[in-house]
């Protein structure tokens, strides 16, 4: 395995040049692997796996039916290498990824309702105050509820 990795690396440098190769490393998130063990593990896992599909966000869905434990044979490599989380998986791929169905996300895309189906959005909680839901009584809610329980007299009809 190690030899194929080295061979592939050398071949890639030959094809793209050193600059292009480093750019690819960055894009693929190899540099992130240095500090992110989870990503590294996914990368290593991915070697020899079958790429089943790529969704519209760029997440890659892999399957390896041969030398992995059953139930751990489907996984996703997120498009965003730095800040990824499970809510980035769109609903059409969710079923496939969690073994609910064997239909891939691309096959299930047609099930999305045309008229009222909204675009999938990841959960942005924790990504900044503007993304956090505040109830209407919360001090940070921009349309905060008016808790004044009386109407004050307005001096409009000044003489």
């Amino acid at each position: 395995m190690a030899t194929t990795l080295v061979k592939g690396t050398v071949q890639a440098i030959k094809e793209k040049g050193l600059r292009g190769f480093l750019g690819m490393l960055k894009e693929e998130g190899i540099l992130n692997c240095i500090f992110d063990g989870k990503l590294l593990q996914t990368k290593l896992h991915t070697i020899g796996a079958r790429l089943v599909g790529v969704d519209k966000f760029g997440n890659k869905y892999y399957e390896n039916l041969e030398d992995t434990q059953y139930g751990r044979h489907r996984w996703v490599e997120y498009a965003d290498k730095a800040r990824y989380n499970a809510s980035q998986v769109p609903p059409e791929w969710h079923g496939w990824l969690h073994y609910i169905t064997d239909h891939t996300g691309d096959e299930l895309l047609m099930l999305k309702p045309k008229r009222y189906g909204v675009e999938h959005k990841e959960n942005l909680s924790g990504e900044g105050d503007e993304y956090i839901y505040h109830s209407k009584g919360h001090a940070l809610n921009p349309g905060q509820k008016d808790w004044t329980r009386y109407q004050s007299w307005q001096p409009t009809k000044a003489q």
Partner: protein
Amino acid sequence: MGLGVLASRATRLSGRGNPSRSLFYVRTIVTKPELQSPEASSAAAAPEPTPDLPPRTPLGGARVHFPNPDDAIEVFVDGYPVKIPKGMTVLQACEVAGVDIPRFCYHNRLSIAGNCRMCLVEVEKSPKPVASCAMPALPGMKIKTDTPIAKKAREGVMEFLLMNHPLDCPICDQGGECDLQDQSMAFGSDRGRFTEVKRSVVDKNLGPLVKTVMTRCIQCTRCVRFATEIAGVQDLGMLGRGSGEEIGTYVEKLMTSELSGNVIDICPVGALTSKPFAFKARNWELKGTETIDVTDAVGSNIRIDSRGPEVMRILPRLNEDINEEWISDKTRFFYDGLKRQRLNDPMIRGADGRFKVVSWRDALAVVAEVLHQAKAKEVVGVAGKLSDAESMMALKDFLNRMGTNNVWCEGNGPNPNADLRSGYIMNTGISGLEKADTFLLVGTQPRVEAAMVNARIRKTVRATNAKVGYIGPPTDFNYDHQHLGTGPETLLQIAEGRHPFCSEISNAKNPAIIVGAGVFEREDKDAIFAAVDTIVKKYGNVVRPDWNGFNVLLLNAAQAAALDLGLVPESSESIETAKFVYLMGADDINLDKIPNDAFVVYQGHHGDRSVYRANVILPASAFSEKEGTYENTEGCPQQTLPAVPTVGDARDDWKIIRALSEVAGVRLPYDTVSGIRSRIRTVAPNLLSLEEREQATFAASLKPEVKQKISSTPFKAAVENFYMTDPITRASKIMAQCSALLAKK
């Protein structure tokens, strides 16, 4: 009726039979085996000698009054002997014995209907359970209230009542204070046997105050009896028979009584609920504050139910001497006015005529500066009709220190008589009116001026056929009366003995003369009071050592206390020449009289009328937000208590005047309410003996000779619109609706 009482009685039954088990006894609502054959079990229980019972106290601290000690009879309630006067019902006997009987239709202020059958008890030697509310107690009667027969009978009644009652407690406004809900916890079954379709009844429109959900009605007819007996309107009635029976107004019309809100309280279920309160709150989230009402001079005892900073509703409180357990619609429903048109910041009118919000410091500094520029003679203070005694005391002290005595309370007229206390209070007392047998109403329409006094007169007229003579503009009465005339000349005729009503007064045992406070505003006020005095002197039975039948019916909550504290203007013309006018909530004075160059300070809680003339606005707290003493028309001082916090930057009235006095350099010597009360003690000590009527000694002989001529101008109605009389009620939307729909045109 407390749920706990019912539940404990239900458990007591089996606990006595088997004391060892009672500790571990868990009460279930399902029918117990021993109840399957009640006759057998009661026969077995009968010979058992009654054990020594713990002494019982009458319900709610009730006291038994024996009009004639010889008429006392003894009955046994659950083996416990009680002495009661003759003529009491079985239910009343049980109450004296401390046993609460479940009931729906019985109400101790209404006539007995006996149609709900919930109060069934077992009486020895009676073949069937008897309805205790309608059964007179007989000597030696053995009443059993918690036998299996009684319980079984009540369970049967409850099942029939619940048969056609909708299961909508979660959306019912009565939920939590519903008699049916409470009693079904003790006598209801855990399952229904009714499989047919429930009856439904069309809702009736009773106007803007009472919401009806007639399907919930259990036909107790309390509302019908209340309307005909207490409110004196024949609006409600029973239509149809059997399952088609329903409460209605016969033809589509609104309930036009000034007491209609009370049917909400007496309805044992959620059939009649408050329309403004509908779906607003649940009764268990409300905080009750026991206070008094200030919308008229009666001072009805009320409970303000609040949630947080909001007044959610107003309910009556029992006070036998003043309002019994009723309140008028104005008292009950004006509370939404407390949330509208509120003054919440001190404001100063700028040079451009617009108000600008300023701080208290600036506002008080401006007022003090202008006050110092004005001459003492040109300073005038007017207390409003909702002012409490403390703030009026402070206002008078403050202006006296500024060198003027031109301070009065609106509604007392230009030249009030504050010297003789008997000349401005209701000497008979509101409850004392029940002893009267002839009424002479002079220029007063009690139905709109003081609805609770009117209810008392109606009660008297109904009970004893008392005669009522009325002098004043044609108006609406809900009892029999003679309209004697419209002007003071009729009064003169009576005083001179030339009127047929004279014989009624002279033949009466306890005649009562009620003069309306609207007379205070008349030019010939002294002459009218002199004429009344002549009547009093002429017929010796009006005022005697044991009866004082001379009454003045005041209009506003502040009037009596203002006169007690001596808020009397030095000269009646002072406002026309004023340079500085201090209006403490006075919205009903004639603003055109104030000269254009006068500086007007308005201190109050509502932007009503006077704010448009004001130069400085000082926000004060309303009666629901402060502790204040009010004296009602019979001279009974009572206190309000704060139920909700003040709005915005508002302060208590007396605190504003105290702060202003310090800024103006004439510091008033009191810093606390108790300090101001000890000042009141030196002026009018009777204002501090709360809930105690200080009798005024009548001294007609002390009155100076009156040289005024009586004018022939007929009496005017003192209250034009019953529903809108003061700043709070004028701000209320519900009161505006009422006056649009219900006020008599």
